[in-house]
């Protein structure tokens, strides 16, 4: 096994082009488990820790945030929690403080596990993943097209994840997760919503209840058509939203939960997160009117 130590992004891309079988390692919180338990022996580890630009984020001219793939969850929470609240909520449920000091959205994306906590808010918030190869340059992949199968993504063998792009929240965002412990818990299933009041649209993301993280497309379309943005939440609309979200899941039975339970829980979390977000949105609306 080799240990590759690029100092710059260009060196990292060159190393990945030369050794496509090299496994990128950022925080290491996922990869090291596999190494410690002899589950994986990559030809080489490509340590991205020294590529300083991966650990910074910036507000871009088009208003979106560009967040380096190596920004750890702990910094995402403290530095971007106000602008990316759904993702920050999800980040707060990742592992333990020790894990959040190391783990990154880039690593979560690279692993592409259906249970990765960052995926549902990335989907709900229309994130775009910036990947790059030495040969073909930059590709911008919308989150909805990034996940291809269980632990499979659109990332090519010679590509590395450089950053993700996401607009600061234009409305309330919520993330909810079912797990069996308060920390260190892999999601039995999870759900995210993001209200986009300007477009009168609600984004969704389902985690750990299908081969890939995915949106609840029919549920989103239903809300776009039926939600009255100037009224309290109609219970019938809320109920139907939950049903459609549950139908969008295609879970499996496994050690963490049954398919039936997961489908049910997705419906419950969809109703809950939308209710929380809607209450916040209405409070803001009424507050503005009163002020």
């Amino acid at each position, binding site marked *: *096994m080799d240990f590759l130590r690029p100092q710059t992004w260009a060196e990292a891309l060159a190393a990945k082009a030369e050794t496509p079988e090299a496994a990128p390692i950022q925080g290491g919180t996922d990869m090291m*488990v596999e190494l410690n338990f002899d589950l994986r022996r990559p030809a080489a*580890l490509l340590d991205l820790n020294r590529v300083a630009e991966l650990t910074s984020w910036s507000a871009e001219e088009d208003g979106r945030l560009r967040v380096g793939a190596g920004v750890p969850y702990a910094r995402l929470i403290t530095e971007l929690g106000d602008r990316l609240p759904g993702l920050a909520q999800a980040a707060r449920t990742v592992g*333990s403080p*020790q894990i959040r000091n190391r783990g990154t959205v880039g690593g979560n994306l690279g692993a592409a596990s259906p249970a990765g906590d960052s995926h549902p808010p990335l989907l709900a918030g229309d994130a775009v993943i910036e990947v790059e190869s030495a040969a073909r340059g930059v590709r911008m992949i919308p989150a909805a097209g990034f996940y291809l199968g269980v632990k499979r993504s659109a990332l090519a063998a010679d590509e590395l994840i450089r950053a993700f792009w996401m607009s600061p929240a234009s409305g309330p965002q919520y993330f909810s997760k079912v797990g069996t412990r308060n920390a260190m818990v892999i999601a039995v299933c999870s759900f995210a919503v993001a209200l986009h009041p300007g477009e009168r649209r609600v984004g969704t993301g389902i985690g750990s209840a299908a081969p890939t993280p995915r949106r609840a497309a029919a549920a989103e379309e239903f809300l776009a058509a039926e939600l009255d943005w100037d009224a309290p939440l109609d219970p019938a609309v809320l109920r139907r939203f939950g049903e459609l979200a549950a139908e969008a899941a295609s879970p499996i039975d496994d050690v963490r939960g049954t398919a039936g339970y997961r489908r049910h829980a997705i419906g419950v979390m969809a109703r809950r997160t939308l209710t929380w977000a809607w209450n916040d949105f209405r409070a803001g609306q009424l507050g503005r009117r009163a002020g």
Partner: protein
Amino acid sequence: MRVSFTVNGREETADDVWEGESLLYVLRERVGLPGAKNACEQGECGSCTVYLDGAPVCACLVAAGQAEGRRIRTVEGLAEGDRLDPLQEAFVECGAVQCGFCTPGLIVQAHDLIERVPRPSDAEIREALAGNLCRCTGYEKIIEAVRLAAARKSAAE
């Protein structure tokens, strides 16, 4: 490969390190610092918690090569000579130590909490220690010890 880093203020170099080896293994087996404990090797238990460039991490989940040139501080580096850190004293006084296996990780993690939040609430203590498992104490004595150490440290400052 060779890996050089600073541990508790001292330069250390380890040779013939396997590329997939963890920082925890290097600390315990090559540097001779057995304070950080090896239990789960998957980040679940927190017993291998050490500072890496000032942030507490699970040493079992850091590749040794990633520690090159970095600053490590282990539980061995918290006491000053024979004088225990206030947290270590509080753990002893409160009976927060039973079998002792989880103690080093808990102390490093709690040490970081008190550095950042001098008077943490119980909720903050619980959240900070959520990744550290203890099978003996039931956690109450641990939380008591963190509270006591925080109070003493604040009073002393």
